[in-house]
């Protein structure tokens, strides 16, 4: 399985043979390092919008009767006299979900780090196709523009929940946001999927074909394994969402009945006959569930790398880690039905999906135990990236465990679509993936921007975020188990839930503090891009190939020859070596044995 990237080492790659203009360098760049930065900045901007929205609807839930000047300022006509409109509440929830899941944690996370790390860590000059890579970013940018535009539509943006179940999403008669707002949402997502597919194909081809000499699959860093498998899941499942979106567009605009049947609304019977909303649910979740792992696996990959480097220890159980990534990837495609236990599908299917769903807990548990064992007897360098990685393992466990309840069809009956679900998935995929993204940013910032981020600000950022994340989502389990449904604009029509009001206020407080403290990160990030301390070539004393590349970004990544690889990425503190790290491009000493994987 030895790789063969030598064909790539034409000398001309190492030098510039055409002059770069501002446009080709910063805008329509085909260099993976620049594209990674473009993804990161765009994702960050979308993230700010998504978080801001969540703060607004959290304030609405906590203080439903009270006018809020912030609403008036930010929502304009949707919050006359500062009182939020019920439709716009649902729109905020919807767009928050869409932006965070797709634009931040899919494109922002995978787009940034797959682009940055795949060529650098496998020892390639660039992606297999720089041009497709550029197109992929610009399609993502375009879809972001459409999503933002949809916020300014007269009748309001899409408001049917991020899962856009028809008929609600199909009928403007059912909800004002299902008009032009939903059209833009669907167009934006269709473009997004195209972008994601181009990206994923590129990642897959690059990993398979462009590994440097000696970089066998079993020597790949776990980051690359994670990005690679994530891309495969994306290619398998995103097209299904595209088809769902196209069929929904047909139902909405061309009178077909894929998802609609027997509808009487606002005094009239509609012509739709023979379709089924349950079909849409199947198609949606066929992507929707793997999407969770598209979000999570890259974060876990980053964590593997950051934890090993900062523990100064090999990642424990490399083979088991790879195997569990593969197992999770496979299982993730056959568990989508656990979102639909009470959708009206055959209860027997519910049993099958319960079985497959709970199986996923096994590889997940293996990963968690392996991370913990990696820390054991390490020499932990508690850098901000390391804190976020440990934080990820913590929230991954806390959030993952409640999956045992939600994945169990019988128990799901009573907590389905309550705040229990919100708490579960925010911890296990939202916060965890966000931590993975932060860990990646703190860890590879020097590689991206040639400067270091301020570590003390990083510490403040982590600890406040960590406390607030638990403060927000831990109590949320309890109000969920009280039976409080999610996506309620206010709970004041249900005196039954009056005793959850206190918890809701506390949750919102934590959310506000946590949200505001992200400014510390933003400040640190943007300030350090320009004024941060200059970095040394390998600040974390890491083994992987990206740190053998010069600090200065050049087309083709390495001057001269691409480094060859002689060992796996985790020879930290290996006996018989002076230093506590041995980069992958250092040949084996006489008589030194390589660990067999």
């Amino acid at each position, binding site marked *: 399985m030895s790789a063969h990237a030598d064909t790539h080492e034409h000398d001309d790659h190492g030098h510039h043979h055409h002059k770069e203009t501002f446009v080709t360098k910063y805008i329509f760049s085909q260099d993976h390092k620049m594209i990674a930065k473009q993804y990161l900045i765009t994702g960050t901007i979308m993230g700010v919008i998504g978080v801001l929205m969540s703060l607004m609807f959290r304030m609405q839930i906590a203080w439903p009767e009270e006018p809020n000047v912030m609403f008036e300022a930010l929502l304009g006509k949707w919050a006359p006299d500062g009182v939020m409109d019920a439709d716009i509440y649902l729109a905020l929830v919807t767009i928050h979900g869409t932006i965070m899941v797709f634009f931040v944690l899919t494109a922002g996370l995978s787009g940034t780090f797959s682009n940055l790390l795949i060529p650098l860590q496998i020892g390639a000059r660039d992606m297999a196709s720089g041009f497709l890579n550029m197109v992929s970013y610009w399609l993502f940018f375009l879809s972001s523009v459409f999503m933002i535009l949809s916020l300014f539509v007269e009748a309001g943006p899409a408001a049917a929940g991020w899962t856009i179940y028809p008929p609600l999403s199909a009928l403007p008669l059912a909800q004002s946001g299902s008009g032009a707002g939903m059209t833009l949402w669907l167009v934006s997502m269709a473009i997004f999927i195209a972008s994601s597919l181009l990206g994923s194909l590129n990642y897959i081809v690059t990993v398979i074909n462009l590994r440097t000499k000696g970089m066998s699959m079993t020597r790949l860093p776990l980051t690359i394994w994670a990005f690679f498998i994530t891309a495969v899941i994306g290619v398998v499942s995103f097209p299904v969402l595209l088809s769902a979106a196209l069929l929904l567009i047909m139902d909405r605009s061309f009178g077909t009945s894929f998802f609609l049947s027997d509808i009487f609304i606002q005094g009239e019977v509609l012509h739709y006959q023979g379709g089924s909303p349950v079909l849409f649910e199947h198609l949606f979740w066929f992507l929707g569930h793997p999407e969770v792992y598209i979000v999570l696996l890259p974060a876990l990959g980053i964590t593997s790398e950051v934890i090993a480097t900062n523990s100064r220890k090999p990642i424990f159980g490399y083979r088991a880690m790879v195997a569990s990534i593969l197992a999770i990837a496979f299982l993730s495609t056959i568990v989508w039905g656990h979102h639909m236990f009470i959708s009206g599908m055959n209860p027997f299917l519910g049993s099958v999906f*319960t079985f497959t769903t709970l199986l996923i807990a096994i590889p997940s548990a293996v990963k968690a135990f392996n991370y913990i064992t990696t820390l054991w007897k390490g020499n932990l360098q508690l850098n901000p990236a390391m804190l976020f990685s440990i934080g990820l393992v913590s929230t991954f466990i806390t959030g993952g465990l409640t999956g045992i309840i939600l994945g169990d*069809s019988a128990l799901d009956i009573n907590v389905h679509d309550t705040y229990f679900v919100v708490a579960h998935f925010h911890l296990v995929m939202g916060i965890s993936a966000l931590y993975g993204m932060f860990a990646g940013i703190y860890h590879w910032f020097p590689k991206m921007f040639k400067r270091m981020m301020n570590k003390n600000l990083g510490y403040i950022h982590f600890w406040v975020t960590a406390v607030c994340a638990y403060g927000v989502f831990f109590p949320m389990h309890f109000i969920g188990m009280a039976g409080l449904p999610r996506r309620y604009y206010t709970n004041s029509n249900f005196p039954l839930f009056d005793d959850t009001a206190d918890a809701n206020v506390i949750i919102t407080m934590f959310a506000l503090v946590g949200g505001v403290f992200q400014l510390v990160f933003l400040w640190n990030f943007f300030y350090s891009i320009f004024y941060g301390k200059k970095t040394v070539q390998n600040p974390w004393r890491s083994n992987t190939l990206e740190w053998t590349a010069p600090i200065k970004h050049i087309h083709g990544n390495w001057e001269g020859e691409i480094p060859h690889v002689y060992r796996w990425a985790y020879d930290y*503190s290996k006996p018989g070596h002076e230093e506590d790290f041995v980069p992958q491009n250092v040949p084996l000493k006489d008589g030194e044995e390589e660990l067999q994987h």
Partner: protein
Amino acid sequence: MTALLTILVLVSITVAVWQMVKIFDLATAHTENSQVANDNDNRIQGYLMIGFLIFIYAITIVSFMAYGDLPLMSNSASAHGPGLDNLMIISMVIIFIVQTITQFLLHYFAFKYKGEKGRKALFYADNDKLEFIWTIIPVIVLAGLIIYGLFTWSDIMNYEKEDDHIVVELYAQQFNWKARYAGEDNVLGKANVRLIDLDKANILGLDESDPYAQDDVITTELHLPVGRQVIFKMRSQDVLHSAYMPHFRAQMNCVPGMVTQFAFTPTMTTEEMRQTPQMIDKVANINRIRTEKSKKLIENGEEALDRYEFDYLLLCNKICGKSHYNMQMKIIVESEEEYQAWLKEQKMFKNSLVQN
């Protein structure tokens, strides 16, 4: 007021952050390559890890004390409820054991092995035995949970029809619920939204020529006799809704174009439920909260809130549009006699039609 307060808090936090930034800038001005953790950082962060472990335990305990009475894990009002609650409690216990141990190991190791210059980590890359152990333990535990869960699920979903069951249709529309009783023949008449005729007050689209439909009864409150199995048939006329009856541990989506179903046997009348100690506490607590709120309302010249009395509820639990947050129907579980008496007062479908 709250808004103003919020803004004030936000502004002061921003100022605090700004101040902290300045302090840290000053503090780091004299050290060399300061952006990589040194021994001092490792020590501080290691202790903070222990602090955070304590925080996780603390928030767990505090949440249980403050909100421990909220979860619906006992006091269920349906025959299948206790089995489900039991499974929930077992799962919860397992979760808390695993959570407590793994969080301890994670944070304790982060503290114990915090980096020091000159120390070398243990080169320890693999151990098949360990991997096997922590693969096999989850397998055994999960196998138990899966089997228990599947039996519970199958009992609930593949119910056996009891002889004295009643059939009730739950009909969802933006944004209210209707219930339709099958009447004396215990068979629901045929219905389709295409047959809705608002002029004749045929609001659920019943087939007027179907003999089974004639004695159907349509109501806006759901009355159920205690101890009799109820087979619900769910229908929706416009978008997806979900019929959620949390106290009965029951939920099923209402899907336009198809009929879904769910069945349970209520075991406690509304009155009995109100008298359970848990419910008495809960209602007292809610009324305390409402009295507090009312005081404020009266100060502002608004009306006080009504006293709360417990009732079972049917809630919509699938996003369905603007007034999703207020789509509910009262459920009353009562004795057979009360139920029959109530049912007799209701108009049969054939008598409810407006004849032109």
